């Protein structure tokens, strides 16, 4: 068993945006009892002792935590590389200056499109201008900036404009990542999945831009795995390199794994080291012993680890099956049908996107 390199600290699932592609859990009410500042401090110490080097502070919107500066300072003092993953709503200049002073290393800001009307429509709230402003503040304060855009059928045709925007802002990295179909996004999958023609066009633009921008910006481009021949090496292997702690202290190998029928493990009940080493949620799919065929006898089993357990579960109802994305999977038809539908000539292009309802504030005592 290896030590994990990264901790995804999901500080809250509250979020001012209402993106239809949100991959956070559907049952948000289960996560309202959020870890307190001193509980996060203990988690960070235990994570560092376990070998974690990088701490991604995410959510929901982490800036909704009033103690974010303290949490960043704690992580920084422990020697962790700290990365804030944010919508930038709430990243005022004074707040940014406090985070800078607390030792925050890197900021990743999401944007939904290259122009205000489309971006605000996808985000479900007026946010574009504030995001652009916040990106300016991040650059001014001397942070490295990653601009992150979740791509889907409704914005992938704008990749050239997105690249131009990132260039204009001076982003150091641009992540153009196609939607992954978990949580809320799973509900919207058919409306979000781009066509092959769209993907091919985007890829040409990205390739040319990488060449042109290679001295200034890293461009990361993530295709939808539905279009891959083999599955993604999800998380570098189950409970191998990363772990996630959810807002209420549940520990998971990845943020989507809360949907799987595995017993809970919580930092409120056990030490992180023991959870990592022994809890069923970590050991269930660690290594290769759990694999059925065709993975068990496949040469790629140590390369892609059978793909994504959560995707296998969502598509087949059995988390131990080969990821149906793989063309060798007996369930591949499930993916092929979705891809076929996304490319059908008869396809109506206005399948409705269901926005995620806002949940900015903690609800009052009655749900």
């Amino acid at each position, binding site marked *: 068993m290896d030590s994990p390199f990264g901790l995804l600290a999901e500080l809250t699932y509250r979020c001012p945006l209402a993106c239809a592609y949100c991959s956070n859990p559907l049952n948000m009410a289960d996560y309202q009892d959020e870890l307190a500042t001193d509980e996060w401090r203990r988690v960070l110490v235990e994570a560092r002792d376990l*070998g974690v080097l990088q701490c991604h502070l995410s959510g929901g919107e982490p800036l909704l935590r009033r103690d974010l500066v303290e949490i960043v300072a704690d992580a920084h003092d422990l020697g962790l590389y700290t990365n804030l993953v944010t919508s930038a709503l709430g990243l005022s200049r004074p707040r940014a200056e406090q985070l800078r002073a607390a030792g925050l290393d*890197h900021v990743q800001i999401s944007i939904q499109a290259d122009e205000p009307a489309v971006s605000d429509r996808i985000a479900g709230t007026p946010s574009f201008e504030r995001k652009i402003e916040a990106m300016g503040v991040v650059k001014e304060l*001397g942070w490295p900036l990653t601009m992150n855009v979740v791509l889907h059928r409704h914005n992938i045709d704008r990749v050239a404009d997105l690249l131009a925007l990132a260039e204009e802002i001076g982003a150091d990295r641009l992540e153009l990542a196609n939607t992954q179909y978990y949580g809320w996004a799973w509900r919207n999958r058919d409306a979000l999945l781009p066509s092959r023609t769209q993907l091919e066009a985007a890829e040409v633009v990205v390739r040319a831009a990488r060449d042109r921008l290679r*001295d200034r910006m890293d*461009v*990361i*481009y*993530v295709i939808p795995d539905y279009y891959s021949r083999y599955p993604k090496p*999800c998380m570098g292997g189950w409970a191998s390199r990363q772990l996630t702690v959810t807002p209420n202290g549940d520990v998971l190998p990845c943020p989507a794994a809360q949907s799987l029928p595995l017993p809970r493990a919580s930092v409120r009940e056990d030490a992180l080291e023991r959870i990592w080493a022994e809890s069923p949620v970590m050991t269930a799919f660690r290594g290769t012993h759990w694999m059925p065929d065709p993975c068990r006898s496949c040469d790629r089993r140590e390369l892609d680890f059978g793909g994504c357990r959560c*995707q296998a579960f969502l598509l087949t109802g059995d988390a131990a099956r080969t990821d149906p994305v793989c063309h060798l999977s007996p369930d591949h038809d499930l993916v092929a049908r979705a891809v076929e539908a996304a490319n059908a000539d008869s396809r109506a292009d206005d399948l409705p996107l269901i926005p995620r309802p806002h949940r900015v504030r903690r609800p009052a005592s009655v749900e």
Partner: protein
Amino acid sequence: MDPTTTGTASRPGVEVAASDRPRLARHVRLTFCQTRQRHILQQPETVVVLKGSSADILELCDGRHTVAEIVAELGARYQTVPDDEVRQFLTRLVARRYVELADG
């Protein structure tokens, strides 16, 4: 739910010269991990566990030492450090944007 990345384009053609003064890129940190007893190079989304003399090389990438000076320093520490091995190592790191070059 880790993504399928098609990777970051590497940058062929950036050759490290003896007179260059390499330094770590702004977003990169060199640290020592107690758990692993190894030096580590960190970027926002990646971690590199360093082996052999690579941490010694990177500690000297401070924007002041030239590549020639780094090679000489390493030669003094470990009898055999071929010049082209250091240069190739730094060229790879420049291509991946871990290291930047200030001209000599």
